């Protein structure tokens, strides 16, 4: 009991809220062609990359910020942001970990991310992204032996231009929506993964994102390509320091699965959610999209969303190949003044495609949560099926839980089933647990974990433990 209490006290406050004093190089404030050229230049990018960015920027200029989402936020001044910020010590990229700024290493140690390979967690290769740049990637040698490419995307642009050129923007084109296009224009770094034909990636790949500098937008771009018959499991974690102002995070993630390939993408998102009065916090406006390009391919999204002031994202699957499978498992928890508008899109284009959506939403305090999803079965997607289940749990009468599914069926040989429920934790269940000696908070924790179990068990083991704790912590103080 005492231990648990200690742990809670430890974790109750946002423990990743510190910031690190590291000298930064920043692009001039504001958004214009010069800034884009500056970013491209500092990264020593080839001409085609700059062209890609400028094309996106042209498009961005005519786009308007969307306003259909449920959580409203004050207008973002895009000219008042820094679009590039990098630790000064990274200007000439260190050759090995030993050359890394000790302050950086310390930061990651504080976060519990081991960059030193000897202090590693069991078999997880990490790519750490600090503000706008990737600072370290571990286990490169071991992966290279199998032909796996796992590196910062800026490096991939230099070393593997043929792959980047072919796939970058093939799922999220430069002409996409407002935030995705902004990202295409100014993205700074992110991870690149290529798994060659027939290779089963021997370890979990992981990226750890951290926003440190203030007034900085973080725009990473992740591109994962799983070639024929390959398999990869990829994890993503995020934290940010506590600051009073809201910070924008608009990442793009593109997944491409070719014939018989499988990609499993897990996220534990724990950006700074703002304080109890809703001041500060991250705006998490991310575009994640996976393309099941080949036959029998599979893409599976798992997300645990506990952080951010506003979460606004819809990890999607485009099921283009015949017999391809898309999955989406999500837990979203909002407390205090957090807001979330999240869900998924399953677009069935190929024959015999299957998709499954399990979404669990928990809202407490004065928070507001929306599940918004689309299931679209096109007229050519014969024999396709979708199953959707979205459950919401409400705690207290100041919060809201909403479900907005869009269901389109244009094929008579396909089936769609959708279920949604909204309720609170029943008095009977609480009573039952309390009768057996649990205090109310433990009882709620137990019930909530049970509610989320279906999703939690989809996570890789190391993450599942962390996520389970996170679920408990996020709801601290919301009972009673």
């Amino acid at each position, binding site marked *: 009991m005492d231990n648990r209490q200690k742990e809670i006290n430890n974790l109750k406050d946002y423990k990743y809220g510190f910031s690190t004093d590291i000298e930064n190089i920043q692009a001039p404030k504001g958004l214009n062609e010069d800034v884009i050229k500056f970013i491209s230049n500092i990264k020593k990018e080839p001409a085609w990359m700059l062209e890609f960015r400028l094309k996106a920027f042209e498009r961005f200029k005519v786009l308007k910020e969307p306003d*259909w989402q449920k959580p409203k936020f004050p207008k973002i001044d895009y000219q008042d942001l820094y679009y590039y910020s990098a630790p000064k010590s990274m200007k000439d990229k260190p050759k090995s970990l030993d050359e890394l700024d000790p302050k950086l290493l310390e930061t990651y140690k504080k976060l519990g991310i081991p960059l030193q390979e000897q202090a590693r967690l069991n078999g997880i290769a990490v790519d750490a992204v600090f503000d706008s740049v990737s600072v370290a990637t571990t286990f490169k040698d071991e992966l290279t032996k199998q032909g796996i490419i796992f590196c910062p995307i800026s490096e991939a642009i230099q070393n593997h231009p043929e792959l980047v050129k072919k796939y970058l923007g093939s799922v999220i084109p430069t002409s996409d929506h407002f935030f995705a296009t902004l990202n295409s224009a100014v993205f700074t770094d992110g991870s690149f993964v290529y798994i060659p034909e027939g290779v089963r990636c021997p370890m979990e790949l992981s990226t750890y994102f951290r926003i440190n500098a203030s007034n900085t937008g973080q725009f990473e771009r992740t591109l994962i390509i799983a070639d024929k018959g390959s398999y990869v499991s990829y994890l993503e974690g995020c934290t940010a320091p506590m600051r009073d102002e809201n910070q924008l995070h608009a990442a793009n993630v593109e997944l491409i699965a070719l014939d018989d390939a499988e990609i499993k993408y897990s996220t534990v998102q724990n950006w700074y959610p703002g304080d109890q009065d809703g001041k500060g916090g991250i705006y998490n406006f991310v575009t994640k999209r996976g393309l099941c390009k080949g036959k029998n391919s599979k893409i599976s999204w798992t997300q645990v969303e506990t952080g951010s002031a506003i979460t606004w994202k819809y990890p999607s699957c485009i099921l283009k190949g015949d017999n391809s499978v898309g999955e989406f498992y999500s837990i979203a928890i909002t407390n205090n003044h957090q807001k979330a508008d999240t869900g998924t899109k399953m677009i069935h284009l190929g024959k015999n495609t299957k998709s499954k959506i399990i979404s669990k939403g928990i809202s407490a305090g004065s928070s507001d949560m929306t599940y918004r999803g689309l299931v679209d079965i096109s*007229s050519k997607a014969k024999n396709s099926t979708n199953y959707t289940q979205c459950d*919401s749990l*409400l*705690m*207290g*009468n*100041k*919060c*809201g*839980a*909403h*479900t*907005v*599914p*869009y*269901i*389109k*069926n*244009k*094929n*008579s*040989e*396909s*089936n*769609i*089933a*959708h*279920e*949604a*429920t*909204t*309720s*609170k934790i029943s008095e009977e269940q609480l009573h039952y647990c309390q009768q057996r000696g649990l205090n109310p908070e433990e009882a709620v924790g137990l019930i909530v974990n049970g509610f989320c179990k279906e999703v939690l068990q989809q996570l890789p083991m190391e993450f599942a433990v962390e996520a389970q704790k996170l679920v408990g912590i996020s709801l601290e103080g919301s009972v009673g």
Partner: protein
Amino acid sequence: MKEQLQKDFYNSIKNLSLSQKDIEIKKFCLDNFIDKGFPNKKEEDWKFSDLNQIIKNNIGELSFYNDQASTNKVDTSVFVDGLEHNKIVFINGRIEKIDFEYEKKDQIEIIDQSETINEFENSNSLSDLNNAFTNKCFKILVKKGYQLAKPLIIYHTTNSKIWSKNINLRLNFELDKDSSLRLIDLFNDTSEKNFLNIFYNFELKENAVLKNYKLDKFDNKNIKYSFNNIDQDKNSISETFILSSGSNFSKNEINCNLNGVYASAFVNGVFSLNNDKHHEIRSIINHLTENTKSYQLIKSVLEQSSKAVYQGKIFVNSDAQKTDGYQLSKAILLNKESEFNAKPELEIYADDVKCSHGSASGSLNEDSIFYLMSRGLSYQQSRELLINGFLLDVVEKITDSEIKNLIKNMLGIKE
């Protein structure tokens, strides 16, 4: 369209004895409509049915002026046989007959409300259009404690005299304490290519019971929009049944405000569509106080390249604890060209609630067909039997047995 609207508007108000103020209000509504135009798919509520486009493709140019001076002959052959009922007859948008022959005259009051402008909560441009052009509007008041002995059938008839016209109708109902009304809307059109824009407003006082059956069964080439606004007080019950089948395009909207405790609302619907018909039901149930209940069941059978849309929303206010909301939509797609779209929505701000929705769409279950065929039925018979049973589920929800039989006969459902 603007010039046409203005010209028709002045022609219409010329024949009416309106005060300057009323004309101004109507003018204001007209300007609103001119400003917004017909709803299109850019509006969230019209995402699946772009009315502007549908009118353009099916009708082309609409005219808005209706000559209300000449009377139309009431064709008694359209009247429902074998069911004693009161009648209101609309022909081409003009009220030709109001007849409550089975009721106590002093218990029902018919009030001319032509000057009042209806304001609806979730108004779209069509309510402006309706307000600008309706020229006769009645309020039917059922007095305290009176329960109508026989159902009231409203005949919506149009004949081939009109073409490419917009017809606007409006009716208000008030059901005082402990009263009850059974209301059937029966559409019978021999006209083509007209746009009907119908607004009903119901006010249900304590313990009042409203049963509204909207039956659009007979094939016609018109485009219909119908909006029901229902305000419900304590203990009142509203039951709405929609048979959506006959028109080329039809959209039924139900907006129900559960204002009093223990009020309950039921919305049941059947889409039975063929050819390239496109129908939609959109329901918004607002649970505004505690202990209210709503139940919705929508079933669709879609043939050829028809398209059905169901948008249902359950809204629960933060005061509305102990809400019970349920919503289910199911569709059978019989042809590879047919399409079913759904947007079942929950918006909940109270925690002690029980709300759920479900939606399923797909083909006829081949296993069930096999089961029946292995017992000697032909493929066609098995198919019919299954569809029959599928739809019967909704029809059985109708609480009035007389009307239930009428609708069963209409749908050709056997027991």
